[in-house]
């Protein structure tokens, strides 16, 4: 377990190899081997470490490794006298991070493997570059997960943001891609701004940045039930960070745009791992948060609102990846809801299961897109079941899992959340159930539109089209031969993930179903300050029967969603359009994502009209999701500052020079060029001096 620092470092080495050497010298195969090899080694290490962790008794499952000093101790004033600002490169393995490293390395490896085939048509340097970024991402993600202090986590936090930026903008020649990357980075930066301030406040309050130490200290402070104390402020600032990273309202806008990146990236970063970092961070600071009930409430509300809003948008999206993206936002909202109601373990559990089925769905959609020759619009798909059975089967399993069909992983984790929400606030529960129903609907809408119905896509050579004619406009160097099953390297990860999506839930079978909810007990030590002591006493419990009843309701709702989808898209495909016409207003709102992006478009147009390219970038980058006016003020003030700088401040400087120059015209008459005149002047001075001396005596 002392070698856990190798877990992040291995992918880091892979990234360095691919980045420094690979881009120039590796062929594709070598680059892929390096990337996958390091990930595999990392996974192996994670497994070993995890096994060792399991081998320890429950309350001793905590291991910290300090690799090196990073920032050596420097004295600094804190709330409690002079402290010492010190950050080591330290890593912690405990149940929570143990689970996370398994998720990251496991799913990471699968996605690496998948990418080997998916990115195959990229040119060689780009290929190596891709794997470099991907490995780099895993490095930072593992750093984030394993870091045992706030600042180390922040390193990973910013690092994954960077990789996200690089990977979204991987096809940087596409304007939309580079825009999306920039948007993601800058929106994340806003979140980070809160996070880093939170970190400063943590240090100021506790005099340390170590998670464990902070938790111990915080546990001894009173719960701030009544108002906003310092702990609440910390939690709020930290949560701002989480909002940015995990794409919650109001900073969620970057995530759908991020779908510009290659699909494996979407699967790994924007579904399975990075976006869950916010949840992870909140879970990591469970003790702090549980001392700030008001913030918890805010977390829950924002999570819930995001879940519903994203789900509604997801209902009508037609881009296959965007549906999944909004689904991700929605599911992340669920996780925050869970943490907000105090069910940290449930949140983490859902995080894990979500990682499986969402990665599966994204990879499946990638497979579809691949098969459809980069087509992403579901309306131009359909009937793909016959062409790509494996993809169909695995995606089906994924959809079932996310919809909460019993006995699949999503069922267990989602029901745990719903159950805990019910205990907390019934209104929340109701809304959450509605969101769950919508989830089921749009997921199956996706499945049905993609795999059922008849084929609506473009014709292809050798199939529907006529022979001997090339479709040059189909893009790519190679002719497209119609939808086809993806190569083995892509389907195998799909299958593995599908197995995971089915089985992952069984680590957390609730007691009501005869399970022991093992995952909750396993994670418990991570969420409380002292092992064995509950975070907040014994929560209210319902009987197993009531719990089963709740499950039944949610299953029913999910079933209803699936049924509606079936009715609208299989039985009577025209219903969907009818509904859309009947509820034209809401439908338009939903299709247009509540006009949020349109607002920005309007901003863009106006910005362009004024000719302020600066406004365009600044507004699109920073304010996306915040107030529009901020953008205006900012750019205007920058212009004004510029003018002020140029004319007023600088003008003063020039004025001084002007005065000197003008004055010199008069004085230059003295300059006769006759040395003796100058000597005469000197003599006058001597005369004056001597006279003064003579008189002065």
């Amino acid at each position, binding site marked *: 377990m002392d070698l856990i620092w190798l877990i992040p470092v291995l992918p880091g080495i892979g990234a360095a190899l691919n980045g420094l050497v690979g881009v120039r010298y590796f062929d594709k195969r070598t680059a892929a081997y390096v990337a996958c090899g390091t990930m595999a080694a990392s996974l192996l290490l994670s497994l070993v470490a995890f096994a060792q962790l399991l081998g320890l008794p429950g309350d001793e499952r905590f291991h910290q490794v300090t690799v090196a000093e990073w920032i050596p101790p420097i004295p600094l004033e804190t709330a409690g006298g002079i402290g010492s600002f010190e950050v080591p490169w330290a890593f912690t393995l405990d149940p929570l991070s143990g689970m996370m490293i398994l998720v990251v390395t496991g799913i990471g490896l699968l996605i690496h493997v998948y990418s080997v085939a998916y990115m195959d048509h990229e040119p060689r340097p780009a290929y190596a570059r891709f794997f470099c970024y991907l490995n780099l991402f895993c490095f930072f993600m593992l750093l984030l997960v394993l870091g045992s202090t706030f600042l180390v986590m922040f390193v990973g936090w910013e690092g994954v943001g960077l990789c996200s930026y690089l990977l979204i903008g991987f096809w940087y020649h596409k304007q939309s891609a580079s825009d999306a990357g920039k948007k993601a980075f800058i929106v994340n930066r806003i979140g980070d701004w809160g996070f880093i301030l939170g970190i400063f406040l943590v240090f100021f309050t506790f005099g340390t940045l170590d998670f464990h130490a902070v938790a111990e200290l915080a546990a001894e402070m009173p719960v701030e039930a009544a108002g906003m104390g310092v702990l609440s402020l910390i939690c709020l600032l930290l949560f701002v960070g989480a909002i940015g990273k995990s794409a919650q309202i109001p900073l969620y806008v970057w995530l759908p745009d991020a779908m510009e990146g290659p699909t494996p990236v979407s699967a790994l970063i924007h579904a399975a791992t990075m976006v869950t970092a916010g949840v992870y961070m909140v879970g990591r600071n469970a003790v702090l948060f549980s001392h700030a009930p008001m913030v918890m409430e805010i977390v829950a509300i924002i999570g819930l609102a995001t879940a519903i809003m994203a789900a509604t948008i997801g209902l009508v999206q037609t881009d296959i990846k965007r549906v999944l993206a909004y689904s991700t936002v929605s599911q992340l909202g669920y996780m925050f809801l869970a943490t907000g109601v105090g069910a940290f373990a449930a949140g983490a559990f859902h995080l894990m299961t979500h990682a499986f089925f969402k990665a599966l769905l994204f990879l499946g959609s990638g497979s579809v897109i691949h098969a459809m020759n980069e087509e992403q619009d579901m309306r131009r798909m359909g009937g793909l079941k016959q062409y790509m059975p494996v993809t169909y089967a695995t995606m089906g399993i994924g959809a079932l899992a996310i919809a909460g069909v019993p006995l699949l992983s999503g069922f267990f984790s989602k029901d745990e959340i719903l159950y805990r929400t019910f205990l907390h606030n019934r209104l929340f529960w109701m809304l959450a159930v509605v969101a769950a129903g919508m989830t089921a609907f749009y997921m199956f809408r996706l499945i049905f539109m993609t795999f059922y119905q008849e084929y609506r896509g473009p014709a292809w050579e050798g199939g529907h089209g006529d022979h001997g004619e090339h479709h040059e406009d189909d893009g790519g160097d190679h002719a497209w031969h119609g939808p086809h099953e993806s190569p083995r390297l892509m389907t195998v990860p799909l299958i593995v993930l599908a197995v995971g999506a089915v089985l992952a839930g069984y680590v957390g079978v609730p007691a009501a179903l005869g399970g022991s909810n093992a995952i909750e007990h396993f994670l418990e030590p991570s969420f409380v300050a002292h092992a064995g002591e509950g975070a907040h006493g014994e929560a209210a419990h319902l009987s197993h029967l009531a719990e089963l009843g709740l499950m039944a309701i949610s299953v029913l709702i999910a079933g209803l969603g699936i049924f509606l989808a079936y009715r609208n898209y299989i039985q009577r495909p025209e219903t969907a359009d009818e509904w859309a016409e009947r509820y034209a207003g809401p439908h338009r709102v939903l299709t247009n994502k509540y006009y949020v992006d349109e607002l920005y478009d309007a901003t863009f147009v106006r910005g362009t009209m004024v000719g302020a390219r600066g406004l365009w970038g600044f507004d699109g980058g920073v304010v996306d999701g915040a107030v529009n006016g901020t953008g205006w003020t900012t750019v205007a003030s920058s212009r004004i500052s510029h003018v002020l700088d140029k004319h007023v401040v600088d003008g003063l400087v020039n004025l001084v020079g002007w005065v000197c120059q003008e004055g010199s015209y008069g004085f*230059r*008459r003295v*300059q*006769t*060029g*006759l*040395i*003796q005149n100058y*000597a*005469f002047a000197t*003599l006058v001075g001597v005369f004056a001096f001597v006279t003064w001396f003579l008189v002065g005596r």
Partner: protein
Amino acid sequence: MLEITPLHYTALSAALFIIGVIGVLVRRNIIIIFMSIELILNAVNINLVALSSQLQNLVGQVFVVFVIAVAAAEAAVGLGIIIAFYRNKETVNIDEMSLMRW
């Protein structure tokens, strides 16, 4: 009056100095102006030596050595300039050397 004090030397020095100054101011031949400057330097030297011997301190004489060195350098460079100038303008009249004005 018959006892020679440093003040006598000072007066001599001052007089010689002023003679040099007048030479600098009045003459137009730049070579003579240079010579007047040498007179000025000598006036200073007289003072230095006189006070050195008065104060029983050698520093004054040491300074005379330096002054002479500087005078030598000055003469060398200055006369070099004069020659160079003369070669171009065929004159050593200082009133004709007034290019360095606005």
